């Protein structure tokens, strides 16, 4: 294990700028670390040749005085981002052999800024899951263990590969996506930093779609500053995504380290759920105490529709997924199975190409959108979503930020939360 992989992204970028090491050296150290940690199953595709080629070109650019903000830094890419000429599967069988002929906007911006790609990272199939166990390529193992136990734990999901790779020093940072918690929960489970940015900040173009009105890309990183560095590169208006925000992108690193004195921090009473583990309760109390010490004012707030967020999500996300995943019909790309007529080919292709969790969500989505149920379910859920948004609008009149636990538990054991549709209804499951 090399000291080069232990560094933060910021320290690595600074070290490269000072000429303390080259991108090729830094990249080689990471390639070796990735090979040594294959047991975690974080990477489902390693691209060492491409990485070394990108690193050599980065070193050449730097020699010419043309270094970008992420120049020479090796990163991992969640396998939901299309990468030109590099297989992109969404960890599904139906896209097992899909090789995009285009690059997602978010990753293209990372390469524009000088970053190097180490490979593609594991995830829950089509980002549907919160333990990385729905991946067609098998689950990821969290590099952490609970105190006094050697039990294999989940890194969370859906961005489980991204979170595990960052936590295990298998990259300096990673791309991830979040629809219903898929950045935040795995970051919490692995002691890394993740941010789901404001919807529209990062272009969705070239990201395999799950639920378009909720999907948003963001980074998973070792530190807040690293996350700010990555987010600055990943953000920006993109005419190819009609929901992309056309507003200036600040240099997010400029906000790091500033005082929080005088900020009002809201504590929502509805997040005090029954049976919350004492360790989560303590972390939350510690956070409140730290912010008080730093000069924040703590205010009690109420988000009364909190309990309806998950059932609303369970209509909106599958409904959008059933529409988005209709494109996988075996005709234009992806798997095609045989059948005696066109409908049978569709049905066999989709039955064989999608995993059980993906099929379950497509069926729920199809059901809630079907004739006679649209108003009762889908429209109702969209109205409840408005009520939930209003809760936050009200909260922002009383506070500047909200402090909550990210997940109601710490990382659980592999196999403890899989394929149980009722467990699917508990708050630790849905991303």
């Amino acid at each position: 294990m090399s000291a080069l992989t232990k560094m933060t992204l910021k320290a690595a970028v600074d070290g490269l700028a000072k000429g303390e090491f080259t991108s090729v050296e830094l990249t080689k150290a990471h390639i070796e670390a990735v090979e040594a940690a294959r047991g975690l199953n974080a990477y489902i595709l390693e691209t060492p040749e491409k990485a070394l080629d990108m690193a050599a070109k980065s070193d050449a650019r730097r020699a010419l005085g043309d270094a970008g903000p992420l120049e020479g830094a090796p990163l991992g890419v969640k396998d939901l981002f299309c990468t030109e000429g590099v297989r992109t599967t969404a960890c599904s069988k139906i896209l097992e052999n899909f090789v995009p002929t285009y690059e997602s906007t978010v990753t293209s911006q990372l390469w524009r800024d000088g970053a190097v790609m180490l490979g593609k990272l594991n995830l829950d199939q089509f980002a549907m899951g919160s333990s990385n166990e729905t991946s067609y390529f098998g689950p990821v193992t969290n590099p952490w263990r609970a105190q006094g136990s050697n039990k294999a734990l989940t890194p969370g999901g859906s961005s489980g590969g991204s979170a595990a790779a960052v936590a295990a020093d298998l990259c300096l940072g990673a791309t991830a996506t979040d629809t219903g918690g898929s950045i935040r929960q795995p970051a919490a489970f692995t002691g890394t930093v993740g941010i789901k940015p404001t919807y529209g900040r990062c272009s969705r173009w070239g990201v395999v779609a799950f639920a378009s009105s909720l999907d948003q890309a963001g980074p998973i990183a070792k530190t807040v500053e690293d996350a700010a560095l990555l987010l600055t590169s990943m953000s920006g208006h993109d005419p190819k995504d009609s929901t992309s925000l056309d507003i200036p992108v600040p240099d997010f690193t400029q906000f790091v380290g500033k005082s929080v004195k005088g900020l009002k921090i809201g504590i929502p009473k509805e997040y005090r759920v029954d049976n919350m583990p004492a360790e989560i309760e303590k972390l939350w109390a510690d956070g409140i105490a730290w912010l008080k010490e730093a000069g924040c004012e703590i205010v009690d707030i109420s988000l009364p529709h909190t309990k309806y967020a998950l059932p609303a999500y369970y209509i909106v996300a599958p409904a959008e997924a059933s529409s988005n995943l209709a494109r996988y019909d075996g005709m234009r790309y992806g798997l095609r199975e045989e059948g005696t007529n066109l409908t049978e080919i569709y049905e066999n292709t989709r039955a064989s190409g999608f995993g059980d969790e993906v099929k379950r969500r497509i069926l729920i989505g199809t059901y809630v959108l079907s004739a006679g149920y649209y108003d009762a379910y889908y429209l109702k859920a969209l109205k409840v979503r408005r009520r939930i948004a209003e809760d936050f609008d009200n909260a922002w009149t009383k506070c500047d930020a909200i402090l909550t636990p990210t997940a109601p538990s710490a990382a659980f054991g592999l196999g403890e939360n899989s394929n149980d549709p009722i467990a699917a209804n508990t708050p630790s499951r849905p991303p």
Partner: protein
Amino acid sequence: MAIDAATVRKVARLARIAEPEERIEALANELNGIMTWIEQLAEVDTEGCEPLTSVVAADDVVTMGGDPARVTSNAPKSVGNFFVVPKVVE
């Protein structure tokens, strides 16, 4: 609003997913559990509430195209930049 086996068969057909007969009952139970739990949304007063669809939207314009070889490069079957699909008209 119980989801029975017939409903699962119909929804699977609409979704173009072949579900084997032995999976139908189990799926009906799973979907019933989820939909029953979702019923709690009925408690929320949404009278006069505008549905929240999407927060932002810009004009939907074509930004690229004219490259059929790339478009068909991942096709299970293609000939001369055309997708080859099963015969659908006798």
